Protein backbone atom coordinates (compact mmCIF):
# COMPACT_ATOMS: atom_id res chain seq x y z
CA UNK A 1 0.00 0.00 0.00
CA UNK A 2 1.28 3.43 -0.94
CA UNK A 3 -1.14 6.30 -0.58
CA UNK A 4 -1.06 8.83 -3.36
CA UNK A 5 -2.99 11.60 -4.99
CA UNK A 6 -3.61 12.63 -8.56
CA UNK A 7 -4.51 16.24 -9.38
CA UNK A 8 -6.07 16.90 -12.76
CA UNK A 9 -4.89 20.32 -13.88
CA UNK A 10 -7.49 20.30 -16.65
CA UNK A 11 -10.27 20.13 -14.08
CA UNK A 12 -8.74 22.41 -11.43
CA UNK A 13 -10.31 25.87 -11.58
CA UNK A 14 -8.08 27.46 -8.94
CA UNK A 15 -10.97 28.11 -6.55
CA UNK A 16 -8.93 27.60 -3.35
CA UNK A 17 -11.53 25.07 -2.18
CA UNK A 18 -8.76 22.64 -1.23
CA UNK A 19 -6.96 25.31 0.78
CA UNK A 20 -10.09 26.34 2.65
CA UNK A 21 -11.38 22.84 3.29
CA UNK A 22 -7.97 21.88 4.66
CA UNK A 23 -8.04 24.92 6.93
CA UNK A 24 -11.51 23.94 8.10
CA UNK A 25 -10.56 20.32 8.65
CA UNK A 26 -7.38 20.95 10.61
CA UNK A 27 -8.05 24.38 12.08
CA UNK A 28 -4.49 25.42 11.42
CA UNK A 29 -3.25 28.76 12.74
CA UNK A 30 -2.37 31.72 10.49
CA UNK A 31 0.71 31.09 8.39
CA UNK A 32 0.15 27.33 8.20
CA UNK A 33 -1.22 26.11 4.89
CA UNK A 34 -1.13 22.35 4.49
CA UNK A 35 -2.80 22.79 1.11
CA UNK A 36 -2.49 25.87 -1.03
CA UNK A 37 -2.83 27.07 -4.59
CA UNK A 38 0.02 28.91 -6.21
CA UNK A 39 -0.99 31.29 -8.98
CA UNK A 40 1.29 33.06 -11.37
CA UNK A 41 0.78 35.36 -14.32
CA UNK A 42 2.98 34.57 -17.28
CA UNK A 43 3.70 36.48 -20.45
CA UNK A 44 3.10 40.11 -21.32
CA UNK A 45 0.00 41.89 -22.54
CA UNK A 46 -1.81 40.97 -24.74
CA UNK A 47 -0.46 37.45 -24.55
CA UNK A 48 -0.95 36.73 -20.88
CA UNK A 49 -2.06 33.59 -19.11
CA UNK A 50 -2.69 32.72 -15.52
CA UNK A 51 -1.31 29.40 -14.37
CA UNK A 52 -2.06 27.85 -11.02
CA UNK A 53 -0.79 24.86 -9.19
CA UNK A 54 -2.47 23.17 -6.21
CA UNK A 55 0.23 22.23 -3.70
CA UNK A 56 0.47 20.07 -0.61
CA UNK A 57 3.02 17.75 0.96
CA UNK A 58 4.01 15.25 -1.72
CA UNK A 59 4.73 12.44 0.76
CA UNK A 60 7.91 11.55 -1.08
CA UNK A 61 9.20 8.00 -1.07
CA UNK A 62 12.70 9.44 -0.62
CA UNK A 63 11.84 12.36 1.67
CA UNK A 64 14.77 14.74 2.25
CA UNK A 65 12.92 16.19 5.25
CA UNK A 66 13.16 12.88 7.12
CA UNK A 67 16.92 12.58 6.59
CA UNK A 68 17.69 16.00 8.08
CA UNK A 69 15.46 15.70 11.15
CA UNK A 70 17.72 15.51 14.23
CA UNK A 71 15.17 13.86 16.51
CA UNK A 72 13.26 11.47 14.29
CA UNK A 73 10.13 13.62 14.58
CA UNK A 74 9.76 13.59 10.79
CA UNK A 75 9.13 10.03 9.79
CA UNK A 76 7.49 7.84 7.20
CA UNK A 77 4.41 5.95 8.28
CA UNK A 78 2.85 2.85 6.87
CA UNK A 79 1.40 3.62 3.47
CA UNK A 80 4.22 6.04 2.69
CA UNK A 81 2.68 8.96 4.56
CA UNK A 82 5.33 11.39 5.78
CA UNK A 83 4.28 12.71 9.16
CA UNK A 84 5.64 14.75 12.07
CA UNK A 85 5.50 13.66 15.69
CA UNK A 86 4.84 17.02 17.37
CA UNK A 87 6.04 15.62 20.70
CA UNK A 88 9.49 14.90 19.27
CA UNK A 89 9.99 18.02 17.15
CA UNK A 90 12.44 20.59 18.59
CA UNK A 91 11.55 23.28 16.06
CA UNK A 92 14.94 23.47 14.33
CA UNK A 93 13.21 23.89 10.95
CA UNK A 94 15.84 21.89 9.06
CA UNK A 95 13.02 19.99 7.37
CA UNK A 96 11.64 23.26 6.01
CA UNK A 97 14.98 23.95 4.36
CA UNK A 98 15.22 20.41 3.04
CA UNK A 99 11.77 20.21 1.45
CA UNK A 100 12.11 21.29 -2.19
CA UNK A 101 8.35 21.84 -2.38
CA UNK A 102 7.97 24.28 0.51
CA UNK A 103 5.31 22.11 2.09
CA UNK A 104 6.26 22.66 5.73
CA UNK A 105 5.32 25.48 8.06
CA UNK A 106 6.57 26.63 11.40
CA UNK A 107 3.91 27.26 14.02
CA UNK A 108 5.72 29.85 16.11
CA UNK A 109 2.81 30.61 18.38
CA UNK A 110 -0.94 30.51 18.56
CA UNK A 111 -1.45 34.14 17.65
CA UNK A 112 -4.86 33.58 16.10
CA UNK A 113 -6.50 35.29 13.18
CA UNK A 114 -7.65 38.31 15.15
CA UNK A 115 -4.72 39.57 17.25
CA UNK A 116 -5.76 41.38 20.39
CA UNK A 117 -9.29 40.02 20.24
CA UNK A 118 -8.66 36.53 21.54
CA UNK A 119 -9.59 33.31 19.80
CA UNK A 120 -12.88 32.57 18.14
CA UNK A 121 -14.56 29.47 19.62
CA UNK A 122 -13.51 27.64 16.47
CA UNK A 123 -9.86 28.59 16.94
CA UNK A 124 -9.92 27.80 20.64
CA UNK A 125 -11.20 24.32 19.86
CA UNK A 126 -8.70 23.54 17.11
CA UNK A 127 -5.56 25.13 18.49
CA UNK A 128 -5.63 22.66 21.38
CA UNK A 129 -4.53 20.02 18.87
CA UNK A 130 -1.53 21.97 17.59
CA UNK A 131 1.76 22.28 19.44
CA UNK A 132 3.47 25.67 19.26
CA UNK A 133 7.17 25.93 18.40
CA UNK A 134 7.15 22.98 16.03
CA UNK A 135 6.86 22.37 12.29
CA UNK A 136 3.53 21.30 10.81
CA UNK A 137 2.48 19.79 7.50
CA UNK A 138 -0.17 17.84 5.60
CA UNK A 139 -0.53 14.19 6.60
CA UNK A 140 -3.05 13.24 3.92
CA UNK A 141 -5.75 13.65 6.61
CA UNK A 142 -4.64 10.50 8.36
CA UNK A 143 -7.56 10.64 10.78
CA UNK A 144 -9.98 10.56 7.84
CA UNK A 145 -8.11 7.78 6.05
CA UNK A 146 -8.43 5.65 9.18
CA UNK A 147 -12.18 6.11 8.95
CA UNK A 148 -12.18 5.10 5.29
CA UNK A 149 -12.63 8.66 4.05
CA UNK A 150 -10.65 10.61 1.48
CA UNK A 151 -8.55 13.59 2.58
CA UNK A 152 -10.62 16.75 3.05
CA UNK A 153 -9.14 18.48 0.00
CA UNK A 154 -10.21 15.53 -2.16
CA UNK A 155 -13.74 15.29 -0.76
CA UNK A 156 -14.35 19.02 -1.03
CA UNK A 157 -12.90 19.75 -4.47
CA UNK A 158 -15.92 21.12 -6.38
CA UNK A 159 -14.52 20.16 -9.79
CA UNK A 160 -13.46 16.67 -8.70
CA UNK A 161 -9.92 17.45 -9.77
CA UNK A 162 -8.38 15.33 -7.03
CA UNK A 163 -8.31 11.57 -6.75
CA UNK A 164 -6.87 9.64 -3.82
CA UNK A 165 -5.89 5.99 -3.68
CA UNK A 166 -3.25 3.29 -3.68
CA UNK A 167 -0.41 3.93 -6.12
CA UNK A 168 0.84 0.36 -5.80
CA UNK A 169 -2.46 -1.12 -6.94
CA UNK A 170 -2.41 -1.09 -10.77
CA UNK A 171 -6.22 -1.32 -10.79
CA UNK A 172 -6.76 1.73 -8.60
CA UNK A 173 -8.22 4.93 -10.04
CA UNK A 174 -5.03 6.87 -9.32
CA UNK A 175 -2.88 4.30 -11.14
CA UNK A 176 -5.27 4.26 -14.08
CA UNK A 177 -5.29 8.06 -14.38
CA UNK A 178 -1.50 8.27 -14.21
CA UNK A 179 -1.18 5.54 -16.82
CA UNK A 180 -3.82 6.79 -19.24
CA UNK A 181 -3.32 10.53 -18.89
CA UNK A 182 0.45 10.62 -18.51
CA UNK A 183 0.52 11.81 -14.93
CA UNK A 184 3.83 13.04 -13.59
CA UNK A 185 5.09 14.36 -10.28
CA UNK A 186 6.47 17.88 -9.85
CA UNK A 187 10.22 18.13 -10.39
CA UNK A 188 10.92 14.39 -10.72
CA UNK A 189 14.55 15.25 -11.45
CA UNK A 190 15.06 15.83 -7.73
CA UNK A 191 14.78 12.12 -7.10
CA UNK A 192 12.42 12.46 -4.15
CA UNK A 193 9.78 10.20 -5.77
CA UNK A 194 6.67 12.14 -4.74
CA UNK A 195 3.31 10.42 -4.17
CA UNK A 196 1.35 13.29 -5.70
CA UNK A 197 0.96 13.30 -9.47
CA UNK A 198 -0.34 15.95 -11.81
CA UNK A 199 -2.33 15.28 -14.97
CA UNK A 200 -1.48 17.71 -17.76
CA UNK A 201 -3.97 20.51 -18.53
Amino acid sequence: MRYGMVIDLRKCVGCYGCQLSCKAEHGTPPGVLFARVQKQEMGTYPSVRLIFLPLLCFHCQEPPCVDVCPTGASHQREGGIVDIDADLCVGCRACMMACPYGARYYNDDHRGYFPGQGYTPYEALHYQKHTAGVVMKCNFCLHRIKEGLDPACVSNCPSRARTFGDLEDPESEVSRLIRERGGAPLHPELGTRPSVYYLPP
Partner: protein
Amino acid sequence: MATNSYDQLLADLGATFRPQREWVEGRGLYLITGHFLSGIGAGAWFFSLLFHYRPGLLLAFLAAGLGGVAHLLFLGRPERFWRMLKIRRSWISRGFVGISLFLPFSFLYLLPLFIPGIPWSSEEALSRAFLLLSVLGMLIIFVYKGNVYAASRGIPFWNSPLLPVLYIVYALRGGVALILLSLPFTGNSLNSEGAAIIELWIAVSAAVMILFYLGVMANTNVAARRSVTDLARGRVSGSFYLGTVGIGLVVPILLGAIGYLSPLSQLILAAIGFFSLVGDFFAKYTIAKAGIYMPLLPVERG
Protein backbone atom coordinates in the same frame (compact mmCIF):
# COMPACT_ATOMS: atom_id res chain seq x y z
CA MET B 1 -6.36 41.03 10.99
CA ALA B 2 -3.27 38.84 11.13
CA THR B 3 0.25 40.13 11.59
CA ASN B 4 3.18 41.45 9.60
CA SER B 5 4.87 38.06 9.56
CA TYR B 6 1.66 36.45 8.30
CA ASP B 7 1.33 39.01 5.51
CA GLN B 8 5.00 38.49 4.74
CA LEU B 9 4.52 34.74 4.47
CA LEU B 10 1.58 35.11 2.11
CA ALA B 11 3.60 37.50 -0.05
CA ASP B 12 6.54 35.07 -0.03
CA LEU B 13 4.36 32.12 -0.99
CA GLY B 14 3.02 34.05 -3.96
CA ALA B 15 6.45 35.13 -5.13
CA THR B 16 8.35 33.34 -7.87
CA PHE B 17 11.49 33.34 -5.74
CA ARG B 18 10.57 32.64 -2.13
CA PRO B 19 13.32 33.71 0.30
CA GLN B 20 13.96 31.57 3.34
CA ARG B 21 13.49 33.61 6.50
CA GLU B 22 13.36 31.00 9.27
CA TRP B 23 17.13 30.65 9.57
CA VAL B 24 18.06 34.29 9.34
CA GLU B 25 15.30 36.55 10.67
CA GLY B 26 13.87 36.91 14.16
CA ARG B 27 15.10 34.02 16.26
CA GLY B 28 16.96 32.78 13.19
CA LEU B 29 19.69 35.26 14.14
CA TYR B 30 20.43 33.03 17.13
CA LEU B 31 21.24 30.23 14.70
CA ILE B 32 23.62 32.43 12.72
CA THR B 33 25.21 33.54 16.00
CA GLY B 34 25.43 29.94 17.16
CA HIS B 35 27.18 28.86 13.97
CA PHE B 36 29.48 31.87 14.17
CA LEU B 37 30.48 31.33 17.80
CA SER B 38 30.84 27.56 17.64
CA GLY B 39 32.94 27.94 14.48
CA ILE B 40 35.38 30.44 15.97
CA GLY B 41 35.42 28.37 19.17
CA ALA B 42 36.53 25.28 17.28
CA GLY B 43 39.04 27.32 15.26
CA ALA B 44 40.47 29.00 18.34
CA TRP B 45 40.81 25.65 20.10
CA PHE B 46 42.74 24.27 17.15
CA PHE B 47 45.16 27.18 16.85
CA SER B 48 45.54 27.64 20.61
CA LEU B 49 46.65 24.02 20.85
CA LEU B 50 48.99 24.62 17.92
CA PHE B 51 50.48 27.80 19.45
CA HIS B 52 50.30 26.52 23.07
CA TYR B 53 48.25 29.62 23.87
CA ARG B 54 46.35 29.05 27.11
CA PRO B 55 44.12 32.14 27.06
CA GLY B 56 43.01 31.10 23.58
CA LEU B 57 41.91 27.71 24.92
CA LEU B 58 39.74 29.42 27.49
CA LEU B 59 38.29 31.81 24.90
CA ALA B 60 37.59 28.90 22.57
CA PHE B 61 35.66 27.12 25.30
CA LEU B 62 33.67 30.25 26.12
CA ALA B 63 32.89 30.96 22.46
CA ALA B 64 31.73 27.41 21.83
CA GLY B 65 29.68 27.45 25.05
CA LEU B 66 27.94 30.66 24.05
CA GLY B 67 27.45 29.18 20.59
CA GLY B 68 25.71 26.21 22.16
CA VAL B 69 23.43 28.51 24.13
CA ALA B 70 22.62 30.48 20.97
CA HIS B 71 21.71 27.23 19.22
CA LEU B 72 19.30 26.37 22.03
CA LEU B 73 17.73 29.83 21.96
CA PHE B 74 16.95 29.34 18.29
CA LEU B 75 14.96 26.15 18.82
CA GLY B 76 11.19 26.33 18.98
CA ARG B 77 11.20 23.79 21.83
CA PRO B 78 14.63 24.13 23.48
CA GLU B 79 13.55 22.03 26.47
CA ARG B 80 13.61 19.01 24.16
CA PHE B 81 17.25 19.54 23.08
CA TRP B 82 18.33 16.21 24.52
CA ARG B 83 16.33 14.42 21.86
CA MET B 84 19.02 15.42 19.35
CA LEU B 85 21.70 13.55 21.29
CA LYS B 86 21.62 10.49 19.11
CA ILE B 87 23.78 9.79 16.09
CA ARG B 88 21.55 9.99 13.05
CA ARG B 89 21.93 10.89 9.40
CA SER B 90 21.02 14.45 10.32
CA TRP B 91 23.95 16.87 10.42
CA ILE B 92 22.20 18.84 13.16
CA SER B 93 22.27 15.86 15.49
CA ARG B 94 25.90 15.18 14.49
CA GLY B 95 26.71 18.80 15.32
CA PHE B 96 24.91 18.48 18.63
CA VAL B 97 26.97 15.39 19.42
CA GLY B 98 30.11 17.36 18.51
CA ILE B 99 29.24 20.26 20.81
CA SER B 100 28.25 17.81 23.53
CA LEU B 101 31.68 16.18 23.24
CA PHE B 102 33.61 19.42 23.00
CA LEU B 103 32.14 21.41 25.88
CA PRO B 104 32.48 18.97 28.79
CA PHE B 105 35.81 17.49 27.72
CA SER B 106 37.45 20.81 26.87
CA PHE B 107 36.26 22.05 30.27
CA LEU B 108 37.84 19.06 32.01
CA TYR B 109 41.06 19.58 30.06
CA LEU B 110 41.14 23.27 30.98
CA LEU B 111 40.60 22.77 34.71
CA PRO B 112 44.19 21.81 35.70
CA LEU B 113 45.58 24.49 33.37
CA PHE B 114 43.87 27.29 35.26
CA ILE B 115 42.96 25.97 38.70
CA PRO B 116 45.62 24.53 41.03
CA GLY B 117 44.79 21.50 43.12
CA ILE B 118 42.75 19.63 40.53
CA PRO B 119 43.21 15.85 41.06
CA TRP B 120 44.62 15.33 37.57
CA SER B 121 47.41 17.24 35.84
CA SER B 122 47.46 18.37 32.24
CA GLU B 123 50.25 15.87 31.51
CA GLU B 124 48.40 12.78 32.74
CA ALA B 125 46.81 10.20 30.49
CA LEU B 126 43.38 11.18 31.78
CA SER B 127 43.91 14.75 30.67
CA ARG B 128 45.14 13.54 27.28
CA ALA B 129 41.95 11.52 26.93
CA PHE B 130 39.92 14.65 27.66
CA LEU B 131 41.97 16.51 25.07
CA LEU B 132 41.46 13.78 22.50
CA LEU B 133 37.69 13.82 22.99
CA SER B 134 37.59 17.61 22.86
CA VAL B 135 39.54 17.53 19.59
CA LEU B 136 37.07 14.98 18.22
CA GLY B 137 34.23 17.35 19.17
CA MET B 138 36.16 20.23 17.59
CA LEU B 139 36.51 18.34 14.29
CA ILE B 140 32.78 17.59 14.23
CA ILE B 141 32.02 21.27 14.91
CA PHE B 142 34.29 22.23 12.01
CA VAL B 143 32.41 20.10 9.52
CA TYR B 144 28.79 20.07 10.71
CA LYS B 145 27.73 23.68 10.08
CA GLY B 146 28.36 23.80 6.36
CA ASN B 147 26.86 20.37 5.99
CA VAL B 148 23.65 21.45 7.74
CA TYR B 149 23.21 24.03 4.98
CA ALA B 150 24.45 21.76 2.22
CA ALA B 151 21.85 19.13 3.18
CA SER B 152 19.05 21.65 2.58
CA ARG B 153 17.77 20.46 -0.75
CA GLY B 154 15.02 23.07 -0.84
CA ILE B 155 17.60 25.86 -1.06
CA PRO B 156 19.73 25.28 -4.17
CA PHE B 157 22.24 28.02 -3.26
CA TRP B 158 23.31 26.05 -0.19
CA ASN B 159 22.97 22.59 -1.66
CA SER B 160 26.60 22.25 -2.68
CA PRO B 161 29.56 20.24 -1.35
CA LEU B 162 31.62 23.44 -1.60
CA LEU B 163 29.76 25.15 1.21
CA PRO B 164 31.11 22.93 4.04
CA VAL B 165 34.64 23.69 2.80
CA LEU B 166 33.92 27.42 2.91
CA TYR B 167 32.55 27.10 6.45
CA ILE B 168 35.65 25.19 7.58
CA VAL B 169 37.89 27.91 6.11
CA TYR B 170 35.86 30.55 7.95
CA ALA B 171 35.97 28.59 11.22
CA LEU B 172 39.76 28.34 11.00
CA ARG B 173 40.03 32.00 10.18
CA GLY B 174 37.66 32.95 13.02
CA GLY B 175 39.83 30.96 15.40
CA VAL B 176 43.00 32.89 14.48
CA ALA B 177 41.01 36.13 14.56
CA LEU B 178 39.82 35.49 18.11
CA ILE B 179 43.38 34.79 19.20
CA LEU B 180 44.65 38.00 17.55
CA LEU B 181 41.86 40.00 19.17
CA SER B 182 42.83 38.68 22.59
CA LEU B 183 46.52 39.60 22.34
CA PRO B 184 46.38 43.14 23.82
CA PHE B 185 44.40 41.83 26.79
CA THR B 186 46.46 38.77 27.61
CA GLY B 187 49.97 40.18 27.09
CA ASN B 188 51.02 36.71 26.04
CA SER B 189 54.29 36.06 24.25
CA LEU B 190 52.56 34.25 21.42
CA ASN B 191 54.28 34.25 18.03
CA SER B 192 51.94 37.00 16.88
CA GLU B 193 53.70 37.56 13.57
CA GLY B 194 53.19 33.92 12.73
CA ALA B 195 49.52 34.19 13.67
CA ALA B 196 49.15 37.30 11.52
CA ILE B 197 50.64 35.52 8.51
CA ILE B 198 48.27 32.61 9.01
CA GLU B 199 45.35 35.03 9.33
CA LEU B 200 46.35 36.82 6.14
CA TRP B 201 46.76 33.57 4.29
CA ILE B 202 43.36 32.28 5.43
CA ALA B 203 41.69 35.62 4.63
CA VAL B 204 43.01 35.46 1.07
CA SER B 205 41.89 31.82 0.90
CA ALA B 206 38.41 32.78 2.14
CA ALA B 207 38.17 35.53 -0.47
CA VAL B 208 39.16 33.11 -3.22
CA MET B 209 36.76 30.48 -1.85
CA ILE B 210 33.82 32.91 -1.78
CA LEU B 211 34.48 34.07 -5.34
CA PHE B 212 34.86 30.47 -6.48
CA TYR B 213 31.66 29.46 -4.66
CA LEU B 214 29.62 32.30 -6.14
CA GLY B 215 31.03 31.55 -9.58
CA VAL B 216 30.04 27.90 -9.36
CA MET B 217 26.59 28.57 -7.90
CA ALA B 218 25.83 31.19 -10.56
CA ASN B 219 25.95 28.39 -13.10
CA THR B 220 23.92 25.70 -11.35
CA ASN B 221 20.20 26.48 -11.52
CA VAL B 222 17.79 29.37 -11.62
CA ALA B 223 17.29 29.66 -7.85
CA ALA B 224 20.99 29.52 -7.00
CA ARG B 225 21.66 32.04 -9.75
CA ARG B 226 19.05 34.33 -8.24
CA SER B 227 20.74 33.98 -4.82
CA VAL B 228 24.06 35.02 -6.35
CA THR B 229 22.32 37.97 -8.00
CA ASP B 230 20.80 38.94 -4.64
CA LEU B 231 24.29 38.97 -3.14
CA ALA B 232 25.89 40.80 -6.03
CA ARG B 233 23.29 43.46 -6.71
CA GLY B 234 20.05 42.59 -4.92
CA ARG B 235 18.44 42.54 -1.49
CA VAL B 236 21.55 41.18 0.31
CA SER B 237 24.21 43.17 -1.54
CA GLY B 238 24.55 45.90 1.12
CA SER B 239 25.45 43.45 3.90
CA PHE B 240 27.56 41.41 1.52
CA TYR B 241 29.76 44.22 0.21
CA LEU B 242 30.02 46.12 3.47
CA GLY B 243 30.22 43.26 5.96
CA THR B 244 31.50 40.16 4.19
CA VAL B 245 33.76 41.73 1.56
CA GLY B 246 34.72 45.17 2.93
CA ILE B 247 35.04 44.69 6.69
CA GLY B 248 35.63 40.97 6.56
CA LEU B 249 38.10 40.57 3.72
CA VAL B 250 39.49 43.80 2.28
CA VAL B 251 40.30 45.55 5.56
CA PRO B 252 42.02 42.56 7.24
CA ILE B 253 43.96 41.74 4.08
CA LEU B 254 45.15 45.35 3.74
CA LEU B 255 46.07 45.56 7.41
CA GLY B 256 47.80 42.20 7.21
CA ALA B 257 49.73 43.31 4.14
CA ILE B 258 51.21 46.15 6.18
CA GLY B 259 52.99 43.44 8.12
CA TYR B 260 55.22 42.85 5.12
CA LEU B 261 56.39 46.47 5.25
CA SER B 262 56.80 46.95 9.00
CA PRO B 263 56.16 44.86 12.13
CA LEU B 264 52.56 44.88 13.26
CA SER B 265 51.70 46.16 16.71
CA GLN B 266 49.40 44.06 18.91
CA LEU B 267 46.76 46.72 18.46
CA ILE B 268 46.78 46.32 14.68
CA LEU B 269 46.74 42.56 15.09
CA ALA B 270 43.73 42.93 17.36
CA ALA B 271 42.08 45.16 14.76
CA ILE B 272 42.71 42.49 12.10
CA GLY B 273 41.11 39.97 14.44
CA PHE B 274 38.14 42.19 15.15
CA PHE B 275 37.40 42.98 11.51
CA SER B 276 37.86 39.35 10.56
CA LEU B 277 35.34 38.27 13.18
CA VAL B 278 32.79 40.85 12.04
CA GLY B 279 33.33 39.65 8.48
CA ASP B 280 32.95 36.03 9.57
CA PHE B 281 29.56 36.82 11.09
CA PHE B 282 28.46 38.70 7.99
CA ALA B 283 29.61 35.87 5.74
CA LYS B 284 27.33 33.46 7.59
CA TYR B 285 24.52 35.99 7.70
CA THR B 286 24.62 36.88 4.02
CA ILE B 287 24.93 33.28 2.84
CA ALA B 288 21.88 32.39 4.94
CA LYS B 289 19.99 35.50 3.86
CA ALA B 290 20.59 34.81 0.18
CA GLY B 291 18.90 31.40 0.47
CA ILE B 292 15.92 31.05 -1.86
CA TYR B 293 13.56 28.12 -2.29
CA MET B 294 13.49 26.44 -5.63
CA PRO B 295 10.64 27.91 -7.73
CA LEU B 296 7.83 25.42 -8.27
CA LEU B 297 6.35 27.08 -11.33
CA PRO B 298 8.29 27.81 -14.51
CA VAL B 299 10.35 31.00 -14.35
CA GLU B 300 10.10 33.45 -17.21
CA ARG B 301 13.33 34.71 -18.72
CA GLY B 302 14.27 38.32 -18.50
